[in-house]
């Protein structure tokens, strides 16, 4: 006769081969917090689970953990709520922070652009000759307010004194200055968030940061929903990731049609001659996949990754120094002579 040990949320039980309880080691039912933490822990374990159809409520009564079914449910209710709360708290992982930070970056861009455009419209009524926009415009308005405050030494003094724009009342000036200060602060925030991402990526995914660059790396994590998921993706997927989104955007809003995923913003790819880009993208994507796996499983910094990448890129560059000859004939099927590929 072989007894089996099973783990339950209220303790460890021993069953004989016809599933009868022979022994139990139950936990302190008053210590909800301990029960909850343990419940969370054993959820990660898939060993020693009760046999299919095993009635935990009956067993808990047999062990003397509770005296009836109602008590069982009531206690389980309390413990599971607490355990779920721990689970929710655990879900705030470093990659969640990065995902939120990337989202914040995008929101800030959108907000800053929108508000800058408004500022430009409004302030343009007063000083249309001012050739500034976005952050520069916001900083200018925030510091100077009305164009009449520019001193004679200022490079823009000429333009300001001969402006065709309307006068700015004191009230309007105060208002616009305040508005512009807020916009400047958004750009300031944006830089802070970027620094934050760079710093966090260095800790969470140093290899990925090294290969993809921290911002592209962070974006890949954000698109897949976390480092573990990114690490699981085939590199062919990594290579085109972000293209679909651009495609939908293109279809919706006549944005330029996308050719490539977000890794094409990588300087090694973006700055390469066009005929090498696809090939370089493939090796960069492969290294990104590898890097994210190393980050997930070992966390050790592997400097050889980047070296190896550079060697491979050098090989590609050497093998394809010139653009492929454009075929003038409309490529007829079967006629292909296997031009340079």
């Amino acid at each position, binding site marked *: 006769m072989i007894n089996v040990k099973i783990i339950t949320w209220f303790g460890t039980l021993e069953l004989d081969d016809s599933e009868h309880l022979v022994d139990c080691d139950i936990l302190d039912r008053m210590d909800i917090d301990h029960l909850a933490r343990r419940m969370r822990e054993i*959820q990660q374990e898939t060993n020693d689970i009760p046999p299919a*159809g095993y009635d935990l409520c009956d067993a808990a009564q047999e062990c003397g953990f509770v005296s009836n079914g109602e008590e069982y449910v009531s206690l389980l209710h309390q413990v599971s709520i607490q355990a779920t709360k721990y*689970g929710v708290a655990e879900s705030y992982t470093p990659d969640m922070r990065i995902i939120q930070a990337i989202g914040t970056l995008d929101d800030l861009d959108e907000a800053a652009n929108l508000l800058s455009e408004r500022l430009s419209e409004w302030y343009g009524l007063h000083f249309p000759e001012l050739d500034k926009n976005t952050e520069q415009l916001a900083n200018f308005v925030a510091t100077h307010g009305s164009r009449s405050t520019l001193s004679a030494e200022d490079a823009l003094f000429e333009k300001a004194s001969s402006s065709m724009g309307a006068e700015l009342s004191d009230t309007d000036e105060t208002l616009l200055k305040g508005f512009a200060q807020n916009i400047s602060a958004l750009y300031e925030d944006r830089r802070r968030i970027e620094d934050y991402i760079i710093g966090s990526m260095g800790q969470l995914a140093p290899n990925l940061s090294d290969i993809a660059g921290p911002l592209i790396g962070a974006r890949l994590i954000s698109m897949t929903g976390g480092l573990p998921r990114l690490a699981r993706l085939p590199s062919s997927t990594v290579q085109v990731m972000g293209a679909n989104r651009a495609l939908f955007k293109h279809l919706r809003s006549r944005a330029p049609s996308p050719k490539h995923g977000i890794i094409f913003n990588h300087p090694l790819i973006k700055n390469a001659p066009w005929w090498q880009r696809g090939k370089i993208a493939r090796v960069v994507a492969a290294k990104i996949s590898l890097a994210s796996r190393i980050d997930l499983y070992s966390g050790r910094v592997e400097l050889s990754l980047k070296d190896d990448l550079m060697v491979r890129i050098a090989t590609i560059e050497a093998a394809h120094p010139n653009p492929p000859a454009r075929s003038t004939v409309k490529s007829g099927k079967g006629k292909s002579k296997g031009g340079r590929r």
Partner: protein
Amino acid sequence: MVQKEMSDGIFNITKGSRRGLATKNLDPGAGVYGEKLVTIEGNEYRMWNPKRSKLAAMALKRMRIPIRHDSRVLYLGAASGTTVSHVSDMVPDGVVYAVEFSARTIRDLVQMCERRSNIVPILADATHPSSYAHIVGPVDVIFQDVAQPNQAKIAIINARRFLKNGGHLLLSIKARSVDTVASPDKIFKEEIRTLEADDVGFHVSNRQDLSPFHEDHMGVVAERKIVKE
């Protein structure tokens, strides 16, 4: 003002301009997600919109909902608990194990659970029933609304572990989450075939298209009948 029980714990209510499905509020005085509360003869009911719940749509389609006042229910895909709260109303003497894998979504559910003592919230992936096997015991009913691929498979592995013999599966199959190109009809057939082919012992007794309440969704009621070895 009429109130007729169309199935255990599910009422058909007409009071003034309010009519429709409702469950008897287990937590009188409090709503859960902004639903209307109606009091009839001293009992408070929570109106239940079939557009917000596959289960309510199934009930309205006259599918038999085999949930009793003392049922143990395993609910897969609990989300923020809209439907779970009504199931909780239906089983004042039972229990609902509410499984949801998104930490973001389960937050609302947890808050609701604090007020409803028959719900056991579980943050877990329904494709890995072993991750909650130390918590959930045998159940009379599995209700599943996960809206993701392999819906029949998920139901099967959970039934094998938790569903009593003679117990019921209430399944909402979403056509679009299984496969985006195949026609819904084909997907429904395929999923039902998977259910019945498995040796877990499912017999599908009813299936209904849930439109117009939910497009491309099918409700399925199946019973687990294991032939004794």
